[in-house]
């Protein structure tokens, strides 16, 4: 440290000016982005305002929404939020466990284990989630297994996401170098101790941000479970509420807002977790 304290504390004016210029540029950019968002949002509101605009011969009508219907049924729809969140959390837990097992299987050198893992991932990724959900409701009872709508939905979602997320965990496990395993074995750790104490903690740390993304996607894909008619989450309520009175659009609009706000909140939590993980990045 040859630099004296005063020199370090007061940077040259030129550096200061450059720094300020950059800060100003960034602030201007952010302000403009925020204003544009506001404009787009207002435009969206305008689309649903029910206005008719005539310019000469040409008229443009926007979508009519029954506001009293919305205010009357808002609470009913909101009542599905809890179920949506519950399904999403349970499903991501199931998915995480399956993904980890599938990833370990994929890295296994035992042929049947490797085969089981790749078969599962291939089957699930090769068919639509929507179809899988129906399959669970329709096929399991024939096997004599009767599950509640929520449980079957969670299983279907968990199984599906588990297949996709196995790639994340595989990448996480592969990110832990061979040297780590060797160092653990050299001090006498057994393979299971090595996995538990050395490999998994590092792999999971790697997998946290992408798992967050999957969870955010999951909250919206949980809507597909509504199709079976047995799980009264957001989407089910949204489609049910206005059907009799031809207020379909109002229900969907309300659900859309709930989903969007939920995603915005989750995304901000996610980016906070990512910043914290990046800070502790070693």
């Amino acid at each position, binding site marked *: 440290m040859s630099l004296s304290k005063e020199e370090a504390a007061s940077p040259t004016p030129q550096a200061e000016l450059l720094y300020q210029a950059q800060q100003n540029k960034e602030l201007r950019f952010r302000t403009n982005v925020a204003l544009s968002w506001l404009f787009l949002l207002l435009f969206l509101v305008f689309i649903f305002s029910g206005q008719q605009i005539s310019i000469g011969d040409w008229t443009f009508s926007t979508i009519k929404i029954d506001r009293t219907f919305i205010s009357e049924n808002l609470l009913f729809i909101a009542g599905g939020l809890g179920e949506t969140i519950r399904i999403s959390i349970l499903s991501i837990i199931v998915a995480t466990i399956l993904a980890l097992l599938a990833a370990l299987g994929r890295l296994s050198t035992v042929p049947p284990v490797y085969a089981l893992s790749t078969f599962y991932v291939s089957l699930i990724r090769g068919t639509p989630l929507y179809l899988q959900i129906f399959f669970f409701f329709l096929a399991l009872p024939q096997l004599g297994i009767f599950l509640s709508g929520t449980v079957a939905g969670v299983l279907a979602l968990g199984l599906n996401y588990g297949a996709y997320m196995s790639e994340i965990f595989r990448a996480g496990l592969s990110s832990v170098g061979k040297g780590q395993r*060797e160092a653990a074995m*050299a001090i006498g750790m057994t393979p299971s101790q090595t996995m538990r104490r050395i490999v998994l903690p590092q792999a999971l740390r790697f997998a946290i941000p992408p798992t967050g993304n999957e969870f955010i996607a999951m909250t919206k894909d949980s809507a597909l479970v509504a199709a079976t008619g047995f799980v009264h989450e957001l989407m089910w309520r949204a489609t049910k509420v206005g059907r009799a009175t031809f207020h379909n659009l109002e229900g969907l609009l309300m659900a859309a807002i709930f989903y969007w706000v939920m995603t915005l909140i989750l995304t901000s939590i996610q980016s906070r977790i990512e910043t914290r993980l990046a800070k502790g990045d070693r």
Partner: protein
Amino acid sequence: MAPIVKVSNLDKYFGRLHVLKNVSLEVSEQEVVCLIGRSGSGKSTLLRCMNFLEEPSDGSIELDGIKIEASSKGKIHRQMIHEVRLKTGMVFQEFNLFPHMSVLENVMEGPVIVKGMDQQTAMELAEKSLDSVGMLFKKDEYPARLSGGQKQRVAIARALTMEPKVMLFDEPTSALDPELIGEVLNVMKKVAKEGMTMIVVTHEMAFAREVADRVLVMSEGEMIEDSPPEELFKNPKDARTKALIERYRSGEQ
């Protein structure tokens, strides 16, 4: 003195590549042996066979009374390998510290998890080891905040805390910036002085000359020389050894 390490007729193949050819060697207790040779000569593989990070293809290894035949398999074989690993400490070229653990946790991991020692005793032991390599002042840091030389010193402490009979060093200074090599070599000299049996794969000729009791030279999977350092450096028997030493000499200038 009876040898503490005895490698007999060891062969190792990687597929069709014959990397160790009928290698035998003995190391006595408290002896420091340096293993030199060009890269690809099999010296690291030989070292890694000694704690079975590489499984030898043929021959046997005896370490502190535990004799393992390369041909054996099964549960008892695995148990014996485990015991050999408990008796050996290894230091790697790339340090291989656990990045998700603090320096202290890195050193405590073996005693607590492998030996089942209680936290308090393990901590005292770990702090003592860290102190002996001059790294106690960084015990709460994570490995990423350390220099290469500091990492390697912690790695040495991690191995020493398991109280091994033999320390295996696999090119411990090859990944270091030149100015950091000295601190690691000094720690290794200290460990040697304290009477540890050491087998060191290295390119550091000065270290070999100063610290080693014997220098073994490998070339293309064969052990071509086994002599005390002063003899080896003064009049190498094998032409290949001569060439190797010349190369190092010119590098040192």
